[in-house]
């Protein structure tokens, strides 16, 4: 069981900055994120795109913003559970919460702060009527263990990096690899496109373009797919069909936590501290809603700051505290490090 003071769900900019504000109050944080790396959308969707409305940064790349935040919170040694999705929450008799991930990792904290952005990133599923019938029997949207494809016939659909890279990788594992894409052009890295071309020339990848899979064939498991190219429809035998169309955020299991939801977002008390209808559970950043809400990183930073002050009061109801300025008090890390403004030098003149 992982124990912490504030359990933050979502390691995007808002969740990361909450670690800093909590650290100033000597509260420890642990973050859960469905993605394998911190940074949320900034890292996953647009790391190389500039942001122009972070105060005091006329321009900063989203990826650099995440790197800077990671550096800023380093003294506060946050814990991370990455690549796992927060699945359930349970309130114990002592008022603390247990949050369990899809992989069964349990976290215990008196405060839960949901900073989940637009939700957890999940694979985009193509609108093929019967595809959901085969989700445990040969259709996979994410490749977790390439070994299951050893000596199997595999059909991959998609035109991005992930479709190209896995097609290349699986030529050494599967007995046959077919790649289907709606266009003749691929938008992946040039190296990958060239490699697929080479493997196609060698007859190791069958490329079917411009085409798409319109049906999955089989009784109890995948036995093939129907493919449409222009007006022509034909079948290909296969053991696995792997559609790789990238990720899209979904609110996911959080929607079932008993929180008040409005417009695909969690309602919070913005006049006070961004707490939800469940005392002890807060929602900050893009995932919350209140009158006048703006989904901006800078608003997320503000919300994180107020949330931490409220969380401190909740954890230590009898302790008096006033907010302190870092310029005055410095930053004392949990690792014993201390950053502070240089002291004035007093020297007399003879």
């Amino acid at each position, binding site marked *: 069981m992982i124990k912490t003071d504030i359990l933050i769900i979502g390691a995007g900019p808002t969740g990361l900055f909450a670690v800093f504000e909590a650290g100033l109050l000597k509260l420890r944080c642990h973050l859960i994120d469905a993605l394998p790396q911190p940074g949320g*959308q900034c890292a996953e*969707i*647009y790391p190389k*795109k500039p942001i122009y409305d972070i105060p005091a940064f006329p321009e900063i790349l989203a990826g650099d913003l995440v790197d800077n935040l990671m550096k800023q919170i380093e003294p506060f040694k946050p814990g991370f559970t990455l690549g796992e999705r927060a699945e359930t929450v349970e309130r114990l008799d002592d008022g603390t919460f247990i949050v369990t991930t899809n992989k069964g990792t349990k976290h215990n904290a008196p405060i839960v702060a949901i900073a989940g952005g*637009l*939700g957890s990133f999940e694979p*985009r599923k*193509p*609108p093929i009527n019967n595809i959901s019938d085969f989700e445990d029997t040969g259709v996979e949207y994410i490749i977790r263990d390439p070994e299951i494809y050893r000596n199997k016939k595999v059909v991959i659909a*998609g*035109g*991005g990096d992930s479709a190209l890279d896995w097609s290349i990788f699986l030529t050494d594992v599967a007995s046959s690899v077919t790649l289907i*894409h*709606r*266009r003749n*052009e691929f*938008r992946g890295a040039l190296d990958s496109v060239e490699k697929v071309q080479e493997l196609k020339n060698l007859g190791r990848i069958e490329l079917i373009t411009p085409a798409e899979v319109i049906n999955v064939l089989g009784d109890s498991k995948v036995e093939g797919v129907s493919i449409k190219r222009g007006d022509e429809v034909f079948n290909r035998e296969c053991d696995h069909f792997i559609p790789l*169309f*990238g990720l*899209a*955020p979904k*609110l996911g299991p959080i929607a079932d936590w008993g929180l008040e939801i409005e*417009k*695909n*977002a969690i309602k919070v008390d913005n006049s006070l501290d961004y707490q939800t209808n469940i005392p002890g559970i807060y929602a900050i950043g893009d995932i919350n*809603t209140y009158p006048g809400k703006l989904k901006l990183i800078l608003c997320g930073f503000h919300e994180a700051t107020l949330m931490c002050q409220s969380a401190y009061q909740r954890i230590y109801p009898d302790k008096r505290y006033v907010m302190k300025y870092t310029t005055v008090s410095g930053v004392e890390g949990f690792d014993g490090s201390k950053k502070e403004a240089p002291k004035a030098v007093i020297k007399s003149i003879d």
Partner: protein
Amino acid sequence: MTDIKISIIDRNGTLHEVDAPTDMNMNLMEIVRSYELAPEGTIGVCGGMAMCASCQCYVLSDHELPEMSYDEDAMLAEAFHVKENSRLGCQIHMKPEMNGLKVELAPES
């Protein structure tokens, strides 16, 4: 005159005729959001970077629209429910010559 009239068929098939400003650098996805014609979180998910296709729409009138950028074209190659007249709403900025434009929102995916 900085407003134009555009017609938007929402995902339930209802037609809305709305005024769209042309002087605020607004795109079609933002017009849809400003009139709340699709639930928040189901449109403009990537914020308008042509990176999610949640604002895909079908252009029903024969207006001449700005040419598709590489990013938009590439995103539509990966999107679902794509037709000949598919465009990403976030890439269509409101211009006076678009007065009378008619579009239909593609299904949520």
